[in-house]
C-alpha cells in the first residue's frame, strides 16, 4: 500500500476517535489539573498558586478533616461493594450457569433490572421502603416479631453509610453477575465433562475448574468496582443531599467535590479547590489501578481454548 493512502486511512479510522477522546477526555482532565494549580479570587480571576491548594487540602485542618473523612468513607463504601456485591454477583452467576435451571432468563433479567434504573428512582424507592413513617421494612420485620430490630437506618450516624452502600450494592449486583456469567458460559463443556469423569462433583468442579478460569474476569470486576466507587456521587446526593449527613457520615469524595466546586446554599463554588479535589480523586484512582496492574494482573494466568 502506498504511504499516502496508508496515512489517509490512518487519519480516517483513528481521527474521529482521537478528536472525540481529546476534546471530551484528555482536555478536561488536563484543564482540571491546571485549574488545581491556581487559586480562585473573589473578583473571578485566577492567581498562580503552585501546589498550594494541595497543601491546604492535606494539611489545613479546615480542609483536611473533611477530606480524610470523605476518603475513609469512600474506602468503606468500596469495601462493602467488594465484600458483598462481588461475592454475591459471583454466587448468582454460578447459580445461573447451573445446567438444569428453569426460568434462567427471568432471573437474569430481574436481577439485572435495577442497574438500568435511574439512581433518583432507586434513592426515592429505598427511602420509602426504609422510611420509619410509611416504609414496609418496619412492618415486614414486625410480621416476624423482629420489630425491635428496626431503626431509622438512613438517619443514624452509625448505620447511614452502610445502608447507602448496601442500596448501591443492590442496584449494581447485576453487573458482576452478568460479566462473570458470560465468562462462565465461555468455559468449554469438555473441561467440565472431563472433571466429572475424573470424579469431581458440582462444587468441586466449580472451585477447581471454573473459578481459576474466571479469575481474570473477577479482577476486571474488582477494578470496575474500584473506579465506579471512587467516582460515586449520585446515590448519596439523591438520598442525603450535598451535605451527606448526619454529621458527614455518608460524605464521599464525589459529594465533597460537588460541594466545593459548585457550592451549597450559602457556600459559593470554588473552582480551584474543587479541581484540587477532582485531581486527588484522579490520582487515587490512578494509583489504585496501577497497584492492580502491577501486583495482580501480571500474576493472573490466562488460558485459551
Amino acid at each position, binding site marked *: 500500500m502506498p504511504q499516502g493512502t496508508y496515512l489517509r486511512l490512518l487519519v480516517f479510522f483513528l481521527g474521529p476517535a482521537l478528536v472525540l477522546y481529546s476534546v471530551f477526555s484528555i482536555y478536561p*482532565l488536563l484543564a482540571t489539573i491546571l485549574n488545581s494549580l491556581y487559586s480562585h479570587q473573589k473578583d*473571578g480571576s485566577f492567581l498562580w498558586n503552585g501546589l498550594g491548594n494541595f497543601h491546604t487540602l492535606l494539611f489545613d485542618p479546615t*480542609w483536611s478533616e473533611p477530606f480524610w473523612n470523605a476518603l475513609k468513607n469512600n474506602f468503606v463504601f468500596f469495601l462493602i461493594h467488594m465484600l458483598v456485591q462481588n461475592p454475591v454477583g459471583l454466587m448468582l452467576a454460578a447459580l445461573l450457569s447451573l445446567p438444569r435451571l428453569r426460568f434462567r432468563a427471568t432471573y437474569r433479567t430481574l436481577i439485572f433490572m435495577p442497574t438500568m434504573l435511574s439512581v433518583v428512582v432507586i434513592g426515592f424507592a429505598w427511602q420509602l421502603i426504609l422510611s*420509619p413513617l410509611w416504609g414496609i421494612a418496619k412492618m415486614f420485620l414486625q410480621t416476624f416479631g423482629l420489630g425491635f430490630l428496626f431503626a*431509622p437506618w438512613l*438517619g443514624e450516624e452509625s448505620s447511614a453509610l452502610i445502608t447507602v452502600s448496601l442500596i448501591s450494592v443492590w442496584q449494581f449486583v447485576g453487573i458482576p453477575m452478568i460479566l462473570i456469567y458470560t465468562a462462565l458460559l465461555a468455559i468449554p463443556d469438555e473441561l467440565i465433562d472431563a472433571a466429572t469423569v475424573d470424579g469431581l462433583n458440582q462444587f468441586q468442579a466449580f472451585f477447581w475448574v471454573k473459578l481459576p478460569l474466571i479469575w481474570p474476569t473477577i479482577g476486571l470486576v474488582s477494578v470496575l468496582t474500584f473506579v465506579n466507587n471512587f467516582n460515586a456521587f449520585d446515590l448519596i446526593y439523591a438520598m442525603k443531599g450535598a*451535605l451527606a449527613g448526619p*454529621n458527614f457520615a455518608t460524605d464521599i469524595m464525589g459529594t465533597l467535590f460537588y460541594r466545593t466546586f459548585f457550592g*451549597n446554599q450559602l457556600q459559593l463554588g470554588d473552582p480551584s479547590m474543587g479541581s484540587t479535589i477532582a485531581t486527588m480523586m*484522579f490520582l487515587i484512582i490512578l494509583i489504585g489501578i496501577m497497584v492492580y496492574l502491577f501486583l495482580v494482573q501480571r500474576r493472573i494466568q490466562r488460558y485459551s481454548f
Partner: protein
Amino acid sequence: MLNKGLKTLLLGAAAGLALSGAASAGTLTIESWRNDDAQIWKDKIIPAFQAKHPDITIEFTPTAPKEYNAALNAKLEGGTAGDIITCRPFDASLELFTKGHLAPVNELASMANFSDVAKSAWTTDDGKTTFCVPMASVIHGFIYNKDIFKELGIEEPKTEEEFFAVLEKIKANGTYVPLVLGTNDQWEAATMGFQNIGPNYWKGEEGRKALIDGTGKLTDPAYVSTFATLAKWSPYMGEGFKAQTYPDSQNLFGLGKGAIYAAGSWDISTFRGQNVNMGAFKPPVPAGTTDCYISDHTDIGIGMNAKTKNAADAKVFLDWIGSEEFANILGNELPGFFPLSNAKVQLKDDVAQTFVNWRGECKSTIRNSYQILSRGTPNLENEMWNVSAQVINGAMTPEAAAAQLQDGLKKWYPPQQK
C-alpha cells in the same frame, strides 16, 4: 471519569444556552429560579404591568432552582443572559455585582418604599449601593392543624412553657405526631428549628449585628439556650425523625397526621393544596422575655443585567416591581411569600395574613448566617445545618454545637478573632 462527565455537561449546557440566544430589542427577558410561579407571572403579573406599559413586552424564562445559580453564571459570562435577573439574597448576588453583571438600582424612585433591613440582602457591605429591588420575604413560625387543636381542646401557645405543655398533651393523646420536623435533610433542623425560634433568644437584629461586628459570640448563652430548647423537641417528633425527609414532613402534616408543623411561610400553599384546616402561631417566647422577634427573611430580589440593551425599559419595569400594585399581586397570588415594600397590603389568605401580622407585633430580623458570616471556610450555614440536626438527634450537646460554630467562624472571620 468524573471530570469528563462534568465538563461535558457544562459544555452541553453552554451550547444549549448559546443557541437559545438573547431576546430581541423591545422585549425584556426575566431570569428566575421560580419556575413554580411561571403561570402567575404569565397570567397576573405581566398583564398587570402591560396594562400600564403596553409598549414593553416581558418574557419570563425560569430555570430549575438547583441549576439556577450555575446556569445564570454561565449565561452572564457568555453574554446571553436576560435583561432582568432574579436575585438570590446576599453573597451569590453580591458576587454578580462585584463581577459587573448587575447594575446599581439606587436611583429608582420606588426604592424609597423599602426599609434598610429589606435592602440589606442586596446592598454592598458599605451600605452605599443597592443592586436589586427587594421582592419577597419568607417568615418562620409554626403552622398547626385547627381540627386537632379543637379535638384535644388546646389553645395556641404563647410562651415556651405553654408550647411544651401543648406538645405533652398531644403526645399523651397518642393519635397524632405532636411536632412535625425531620432531620434527614439537615436544613430543616437549621432553618425551621434554629433560625425559627432563635431570634427570640438573641434578640433579632441586635444579636445578629453583634456577631458581625465581633461583640457577640456564638458561644454566648443565647445560642446555647436556643440549642438546648431544640434538644427538647425530639421526644415530640415523629418516630424515626432522623430518617424523615422534608417531603415526609410535608405529607405527615398535609395528611392530618401531625398537629404542629415547624414552618416556613412558603409551606402555606402546599397545605392549601391538601385542604388542611390550619392556623399559625409565632415562635413562643422563652420564660422571662416580653419582646418577641421573628425571622422575616429576605429571600427574592430582582435586578438588572448591567449589559442589557434595554436599560430604559428595564428600569421602568424594576420601578414598577417596587410599587404597591406589584406588592398586592405578589402577596395574594403567592401566599407565603410576602412583599418587602412598606406598602399596606391586604392578603386574602388568612394564614398568610396571620404571618404578616407578626411584623406589627414583633421585631423582624433575618437569618443570622446569611450576611457576611458565611463567606469563609468552614461555611457557617453548612455548619448550622450539621450541628442543628445533631443536637435534635441527641448526638451533640448544645454547648458542643455552639462551640463548633464559634470555632469555625473564628478560623476565618477577623472580627471574631479579637
